[in-house]
């Protein structure tokens, strides 16, 4: 089935080629005007068939036809056709990406624990003004800034339009800005550096009105950074009724919870992979 179609296609092409001529440059930068020269005479129709645009206009065969830059913005192969009522002639123009002018910057994650090696991944994609990927090598600079000012910067060559980097998080909590730059184009992303796992997690308990009031000391990591609000601390109580647990989010460095008091109990505290102290109530501390 395939071979007959191919033969038919080839026969069709040879007929088209014999019908008329259409001349146009073989390549052109994106967004630039292209002039095509048609042959023949009388009224005709001119088609531009590209990856992101198609147009059809009436023309006088034998005249020049200008294809506006706005029709040639997407990089790729464009088929130009000048057709009379009986046949078409063709030309192909390859539209190449223009100069780099935009940058897409993907940064992951948006929150990262402090002092983690290669924990931040940045990928920049270099584009021209029309959002075509610029595959020719160019240089992207990644600049890291903290609240104390600009830090390290690293210029990197793109490969196939992409430059990527891996960064380690710093020792202090707080936001860091990472900027990817090419020429005048800049994209900035912010990564929130947060405290690492809790260190020396410690809780205390008070009894009041048949309840246990549980509260941690300020929860910090081993470098003294407060854990962010919302981090979950789990209190576990074991008493004559069995085991019960309650999750409490940290608010302003401290997690609080209440549990019913039903006699002697052992209470433990944990957050993430960190276990805290154990407290006995009702049987002496």
């Amino acid at each position, binding site marked *: *089935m*395939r071979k*007959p*179609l*191919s033969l*038919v*296609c*080839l*026969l*069709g*092409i040879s*007929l*088209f080629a*014999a*019908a008329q001529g259409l001349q146009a440059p073989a*390549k052109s930068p994106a967004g630039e005007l292209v002039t095509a020269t048609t042959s023949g005479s009388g009224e005709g*129709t001119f*088609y531009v*068939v*590209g*990856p*992101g*645009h*198609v*147009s*059809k206009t009436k023309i006088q065969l034998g005249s020049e036809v200008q294809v506006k830059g706005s029709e040639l913005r*997407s*990089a*790729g*192969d464009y*088929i130009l*056709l000048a*057709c009379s009522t*009986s*046949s*078409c002639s*063709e030309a192909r123009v*390859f539209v*190449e*990406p223009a100069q780099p002018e935009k940058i897409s910057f*993907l940064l*992951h*994650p948006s929150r990262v624990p402090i002092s983690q090696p*290669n924990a931040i*991944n940045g*990928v920049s*994609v270099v584009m021209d003004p029309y*959002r*075509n*990927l610029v*595959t020719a090598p160019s240089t992207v600079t990644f600049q890291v800034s903290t609240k104390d000012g600009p830090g390290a910067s690293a210029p990197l060559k793109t*490969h*196939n*339009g*992409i430059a*990527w980097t*891996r960064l380690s998080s710093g020792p202090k909590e707080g936001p860091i800005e990472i900027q990817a730059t090419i020429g005048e184009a800049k994209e900035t992303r912010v990564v929130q550096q947060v405290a690492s796992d809790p260190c020396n997690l410690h809780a205390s308990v008070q009894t009041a009105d048949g309840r246990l009031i549980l509260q941690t000391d300020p929860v910090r990591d081993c470098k003294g950074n407060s854990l962010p609000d919302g981090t979950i601390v789990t209190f576990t109580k074991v008493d004559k009724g069995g085991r019960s647990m309650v999750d409490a989010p940290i608010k302003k460095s401290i997690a609080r919870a209440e549990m019913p008091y039903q006699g002697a109990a052992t209470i433990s505290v944990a957050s993430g992979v960190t276990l805290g102290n154990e407290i006995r109530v009702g049987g002496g501390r």
Partner: protein
Amino acid sequence: MKVRLLAATFVFGLIFSLAPGKSAKADSLQPSVQLDVSSMGPREIEDLTEKKIARDYAAAWKTLIAAMDQNRIGLLNDYFTGFAKTEFIGAIKDQAVTGVHRRFEDRGHKLQGIFYAQDGGVMQLRDTAQYDVQVFDGDRLLYTQPTTATYVVLMTPAADRWMVRLLQQEPPQ
């Protein structure tokens, strides 16, 4: 000239008579995709992801071919996003306005992995695609050409599939 016209009419007629069968084939079969990830990095690709990439890229071409032939923008929703989707929507809208449509007979894709981000958020590939392309104005065949083209491709993960974010043809070598 009359002989040429007659011959052209005969050829067009023959192509039209073959075309519906080809179109039906394109609707039912997934294009063939061979994926080579041997030189991709920095992240290593998992077996399951490799299979999904090949399957989803084939499905993307299948929907693109149908969308370009039938001028149906909605077909792009399943496997295209970002720049690629915007670009092809523009082309299909123009096609619908002008009465033009494009028919591809897909003859397969050799897909080579180039870059897979460390966080798994984006993958870049290069596709050497072979297809026959035909351009129609209504029912009139204007152009037909067997083509071998290379494309640079960006794919990003969505909830249950990989989406084509950029599909850009590279200059012929």
